[in-house]
């Protein structure tokens, strides 16, 4: 099944929707605007009716796999159930229609919610303050590095390097570079943890921070985290926590206690705000006392029973986006935390770890498991063992799509060849985990019995494998009216 582009459904003489008239004497812009400021040619937006519009998006929606219908074990992304109550909460008129520039006396409910959310997040990760401004994880990374940068500068130090493990997510080095730092890579050891020796060799007074994920992107807990923290701090550098994997730790242990100075959280992972096909998310950042002065402004303060926005923060790095953060996502996350409570969050992380280990066990012998368990909330397997049949991680992924499952994250982390990164989360039933394990087995069997057929999968999805190379060689990034494209086509 396929669906035409909205532009292809368009008819030139479609009049458009019924809308209210201006009802005032003033002449239309067409008559009163100076000619040189006027638009010359109307944009080619589609001209279709509401029934066609709804049918169009209804069909597009049906082309997606999503948590609502499919197990979505996308490693590192924590695709857990998104509570429907959260959506109802965010849509309450008292939140949805609030203008960011209203007087604080009229937004006390919103400010209280943010203040309470900050407190809850502080408790979960073990920090002193949290900024809710960052829009996503990467934005949080950058925000934290900016604070660390400002901290060092405030102490008259110019530290221009940031250490990043070779297993790190791409946003880590990218955020560091965006912040003007030189990125120095730290190797992982054979056990999948950061090599303390290599770290030692790269730590010096030029280093502003070490960025770590714990559990790391292999789903393994950094056993020597306390030693690592001590080493880093000994050189005056800061320790940064990439919170993408926080779903493994709630109520079990806290980054703050491990010695991390700054911690970002992905509310769209650990705290169930939906991913929306690629956002919006929210990436709050928590910090210890000594980084607090550098928090983005405004902060939210409670002063004699009243909540207010504090803009007077002389050492602040300034705001990192407009207004106060992705408030709608903050409402969802706070609603989730209220419902779960401390006990619930702890059980969630325990269940996430249990599910990952259980599924890992079920896949032993089916795929390669390059590192020893136990794992935390996710694990990285390798399709290496199917290589002799010409089967790659990509083929395994496509085979799983064919069987009704979204695919695990593949080819990440980079240090594992043919990586297949599986994160089941705590909200998938044992029955689902078992069925998924069988599907992987089926794919592995097919890899041996009929690799060609596997190479052709998926066959029952809206499209088969798409030629991404050709797509990148001659990129077509937008629809163009037939006339314009005519010339271009090969």
């Amino acid at each position, binding site marked *: 099944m396929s669906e035409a582009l909205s532009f292809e459904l368009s008819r030139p003489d479609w009049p458009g929707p019924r809308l209210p008239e201006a009802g005032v004497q003033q002449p239309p812009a067409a008559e009163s605007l100076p000619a*040189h400021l006027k638009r010359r040619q109307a944009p080619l937006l589609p001209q279709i009716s509401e029934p066609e519009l709804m049918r169009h998006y209804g069909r597009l929606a049906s082309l997606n796999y999503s948590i609502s219908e499919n197990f979505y074990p996308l490693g590192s992304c924590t695709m857990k159930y998104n509570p429907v109550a959260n959506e109802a909460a965010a849509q309450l008129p008292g939140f949805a229609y609030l203008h960011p520039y*209203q007087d604080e006396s009229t937004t006390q409910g*919103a400010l209280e919610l943010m203040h309470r959310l900050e407190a809850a997040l502080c408790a979960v990760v073990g920090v002193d303050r949290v900024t809710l401004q960052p829009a996503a994880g990467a934005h949080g990374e950058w925000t934290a590095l900016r604070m660390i940068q400002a901290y060092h500068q405030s102490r008259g130090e110019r530290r221009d390097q940031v250490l990043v493990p070779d297993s790190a997510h791409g*946003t880590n080095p990218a955020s560091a570079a965006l912040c003007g730092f030189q990125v120095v890579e730290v190797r992982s050891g054979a056990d999948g943890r950061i090599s303390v020796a290599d770290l030692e060799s790269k730590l010096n007074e030029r280093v502003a921070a070490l960025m770590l994920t714990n559990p790391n992107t292999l789903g393994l807990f950094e056993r020597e985290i306390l030693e690592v923290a001590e080493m880093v701090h000994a050189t005056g550098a800061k320790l940064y926590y990439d919170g993408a994997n926080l779903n493994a730790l709630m109520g079990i242990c806290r980054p703050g206690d491990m010695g991390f100075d700054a911690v970002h959280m992905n509310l769209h992972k650990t705290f169930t705000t939906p991913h929306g*096909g690629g956002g919006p998310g929210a990436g709050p950042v928590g910090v210890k006392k000594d980084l607090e002065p550098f928090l983005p402004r405004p902060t939210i303060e409670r002063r004699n029973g009243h909540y207010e926005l504090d803009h007077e923060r002389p050492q602040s790095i300034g705001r990192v986006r*407009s207004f106060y953060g992705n408030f709608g996502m903050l409402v969802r996350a706070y609603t989730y935390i209220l*419902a779960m409570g401390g006990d619930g969050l702890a059980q969630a992380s325990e269940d996430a770890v249990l599910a990952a280990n259980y599924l890992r066990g079920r896949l032993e012998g089916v795929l390669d498991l390059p590192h020893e368990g136990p794992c935390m909330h996710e694990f990285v397997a390798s399709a290496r063992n199917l290589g002799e049949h010409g089967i790659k991680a990509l083929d395994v992924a496509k085979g799983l799509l064919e069987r009704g499952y979204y695919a695990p994250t593949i080819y990440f982390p980079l240090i594992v060849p043919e990586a297949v990164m599986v994160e089941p989360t705590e909200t998938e039933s044992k029955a689902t985990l078992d069925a998924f394990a069988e599907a992987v087995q089926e794919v592995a069997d097919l890899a041996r019995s009929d690799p060609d057929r596997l190479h052709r999968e998926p066959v029952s999805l809206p499209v088969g494998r798409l030629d991404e190379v050709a797509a990148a060689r001659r990129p077509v990034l*937008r629809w163009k009216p037939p006339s314009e494209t005519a010339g271009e086509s090969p």
Partner: protein
Amino acid sequence: MPYLVHSPEDRQEMLADLGAGSIDDLLVDVPASLRLRRLDLAPGLSEMETMARVRELAAGNRVFDDRLTFRGGGVYRRFIPAAVGAVLSKPEFYTAYTPYQPEASQGTLQAIFEFQTLIAELTGLEIANASLYDGATAVAEAAMMAVVHTGRPEVLVAPYLHPEYLEVLRGYAQGRGFAVREGTDPTEDTAALVFQNPDFLGLIADGAQLVEVAHAAGALAVACVDPISLALLAAPGEYGGDIAVGEGQQLGLAPSYGGPHVGFIACRQELVRRLPGRLVGEAHDGQGRRGYVLTLTAREQHIRREKATSNICTNHSLCALAASVYMTYMGPHGLQHVADVSYRRAHALAAELAKLPEVELLYPERPFFNEFPVRMKNVLHRLRALEDKGILGGLPVGRWYSELADVATFCCTELNDPRALDQLLEALRRPA
């Protein structure tokens, strides 16, 4: 417990399967000194109690009638067709991840491809990306594109760029290491001239002239635009702009106390490989069927790491979807109608306000779209008086500009019907 799925028996079975006696056997790598006894948060609530609590918080806010909201400053009340909410509430859209596996994500991918086309059309430029966080970070990303592209060390900002956007830009500049200067006089050090149009006060800039100035100095021209205004106002592409960015909140998104909204960025073809973030392109499968994929990923963090054009990963896809539904619902005629109604009502309001005692238009001669600055005696006091009458009046801009201490910007949209305008004027006439 809410949202968990395992029964005690399930847990036992799974542990047994692993030969583990308890969860602790799976947490052996966690140093004992780090293990928490308990997570120090209140115990969980039932959904009923949770929602009661959340409703209480929502009730702690005061929402003004949309008809009587005349405050903008970057976030506007506008009519949102029910179609937008109906599409965004489809779980197949809102519970999917970034479309890494195209065969199972064609809905999201095609929707983004349509968004890219809509933004390109609206800005009059060749290419647009899949979305950015918001208008402020979009300005910063555009500035960084220019710095890299030109290899020049400063970005020039014309007056009255949204003060929060400017603040965010300064932060990115400090980190990345380039200068931000205010003015409209580019030099050979200038990577880009950034201007907002209409500007923060609502006044329309002469884009063509600013672009000329920028290009004359070999700098790029970056326009930060109001998407609704583009139905009437010259598009950046029409007057030679190199990059257009903006905030898409007005395209079907609720104010939501400032977010989530959506940033957009569009540029000329030759700059495409400098674009930040996701790009979706057309592709074909073995049977020649058309489909869509994430493409030109060699710009991105997951491939290029520290050499990426940006660090952005998760963007604001669902908000972009809202914008697509909105623009598709409106079509060219609808969008133009909405813009024109806003324009005419704002001008009607300006004309009437100017007649009030102790009220004057700040720039009676300068053209504006649907927002404009007004000088009025004890503006804060009078705005507070309006609130008592249920009216959210203009935005006092003194907090950002000392020279405008007694100035407020008022805006109108299709929601402010003529009767609402009268109510506002009446309230200003008889303060009580």
